[in-house]
């Protein structure tokens, strides 16, 4: 069981007043809040250890390097990755995806096909479209159904020997659907296609075993799971990462440089040109410690209760429709009330101290599917409470009264 009252004390920001009301933060799918333990780890780094990593022989550089690499090991352990060199630090999920996309731009040729899903975030569509424009590959789409689930039959139909890459998010950011990636990976591999999974919305809610998943590449960001912004990870199978061309050039990613030829460093450093976000990486390690201390099993069961409670309560509101009703979903509720514009509801909720996201959530294809201008999205984390959900329901009813 979670001691939510105690947990909330770790998050100073939850005591803030917003528009004169106590903040209710339901925009966790955009970014999670940061516990004191993570903030302390970052400030301790700047107080005591600040130095560049992998470069100096001096004491501080050694210390900073150890702390930096310790975070890599924590991530390796958390996601059951076989070697730490398979953990590449990036600036976030988008950066991770672009590393793979730009590498494949050199590997793919005209006539090859890339499959993405209709449930994707724009950041998962645009890099592949850019690749297709450059190389002449074709982009194909796995369709969704009205529950917000992927239509696996439509995937089977477009899968062929031409398929070189399949790209799907583990969890949809706007609907919360948990996609059946095991099945997608298994089917794609039968055709020899590689699979890249965007785990940004999955890793805050459960901890996937990346080795067991047999996924080829997996990307996520620290700031969605209580870590700082500007840090993310690209995981990949060792032989694939070795084979993938580097994304950008610079210091730290080379082993030998002459004006005639440069030899690249081994993975992961091949992809980590320039001074990395050292404090951010250390903060990420602290965030994983914090979450593992609470226990992902506890987080999962508590968030499931929050989701169930919120779904029941919201469904009682007249005219409210929830988008994304998969039985496998994370604690995210996207909704609209009758014809009221989500932006109007969002503004009124903000006035009452409640932070939600409104709009298309960077997933225009999903909004087009439902033929709506956007949704209001409330996303819950383990530090949210049932009382806060009651207040959300009260505030939505008040907004309806004002707006109708």
């Amino acid at each position: 069981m979670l001691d939510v009252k105690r947990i909330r004390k770790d998050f100073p920001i939850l005591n803030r007043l917003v528009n004169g009301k106590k903040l209710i933060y339901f925009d966790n799918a955009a970014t999670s809040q940061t516990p004191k333990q993570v903030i302390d780890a970052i400030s301790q780094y700047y107080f005591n250890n600040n130095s560049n990593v992998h470069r100096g022989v001096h004491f501080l550089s050694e210390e900073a390097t150890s702390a930096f690499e310790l975070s890599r090991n924590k991530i390796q352990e958390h996601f059951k990755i076989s070697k730490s060199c398979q953990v590449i630090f990036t600036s976030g999920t988008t950066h991770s995806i672009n590393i793979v996309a730009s590498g494949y731009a050199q590997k793919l040729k005209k006539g090859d096909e890339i499959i993405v899903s209709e449930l994707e975030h724009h950041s998962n569509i645009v890099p592949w479209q850019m690749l297709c424009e450059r190389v002449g590959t074709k982009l194909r789409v796995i369709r969704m159904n009205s529950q917000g689930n992927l239509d696996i039959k439509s995937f089977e139909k477009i899968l062929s020997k031409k398929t070189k890459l399949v790209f799907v998010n583990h969890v949809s950011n706007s609907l919360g659907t948990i996609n059946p990636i095991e099945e997608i990976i298994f089917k794609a591999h039968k055709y020899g296609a590689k699979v890249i999974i965007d785990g940004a919305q999955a890793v805050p809610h459960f901890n996937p075993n990346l080795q067991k998943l047999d996924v080829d590449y997996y990307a996520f960001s620290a700031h969605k799971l209580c870590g700082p912004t500007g840090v993310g990870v690209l995981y990949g199978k060792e032989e694939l990462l070795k084979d993938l061309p580097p994304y950008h050039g610079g210091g730290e990613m080379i082993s030998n440089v002459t004006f005639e030829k440069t030899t690249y460093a081994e993975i992961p450093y091949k992809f980590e040109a320039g001074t990395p976000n050292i404090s951010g990486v250390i903060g990420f390690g602290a965030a994983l410690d914090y979450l593992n201390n609470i226990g992902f099993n506890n987080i999962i069961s508590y968030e499931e209760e929050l989701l169930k409670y919120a779904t029941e309560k919201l469904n009682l509101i007249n005219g409210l429709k929830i988008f994304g009703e998969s039985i496998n979903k994370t604690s995210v509720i996207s909704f609209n009330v009758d014809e009221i514009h989500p932006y109007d509801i969002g503004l009124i909720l903000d006035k009452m101290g409640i932070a939600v996201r409104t709009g298309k959530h960077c997933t225009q294809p999903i909004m087009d599917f439902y033929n709506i201008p956007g949704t209001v999205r409330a996303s819950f984390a383990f530090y949210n409470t049932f009382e806060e959900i009651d207040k959300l329901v009260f505030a939505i009813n008040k907004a309806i009264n004002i707006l109708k």
Partner: protein
Amino acid sequence: MKKINEIQTEIVEEFSFFEDWLQRYEYLIELGKSLPKINSKFMTDDYLINGCQSQVWLHAEFKKDKVIFTAESDAIISKGIIAILIRAFSNQTPIEIINAKTEFIDQIGLRENLSPSRSNGMFSMIKQIKMYALIFKTQLT
């Protein structure tokens, strides 16, 4: 005909009667209902204002030296905001619109609509209004 700054003062005075945000928003929604409606044939992507979370269409025409604005939005708070702006800037000469100050927005307690974020609607609306005025001014010379 009232000057832009006189109209703006008038709007600020109206909003000053209200003590809390709720009343201000209710009045804003009320004002949205009086919005001079755009001809539906102009409700196309060409007339959409970029940078709003909701859709706001704005049309301008030049009649007897004055710029006449009409608009529509799919969100009612945005409709109220564009209605206020049209009341302040419509039926004025291009040069007056271009030179007009916009501080009155701060004084009516709707500042959150002016935040420099991506969802920032009001800033884009003012920019578009001034852009139209600028185009008509260049046509004059």
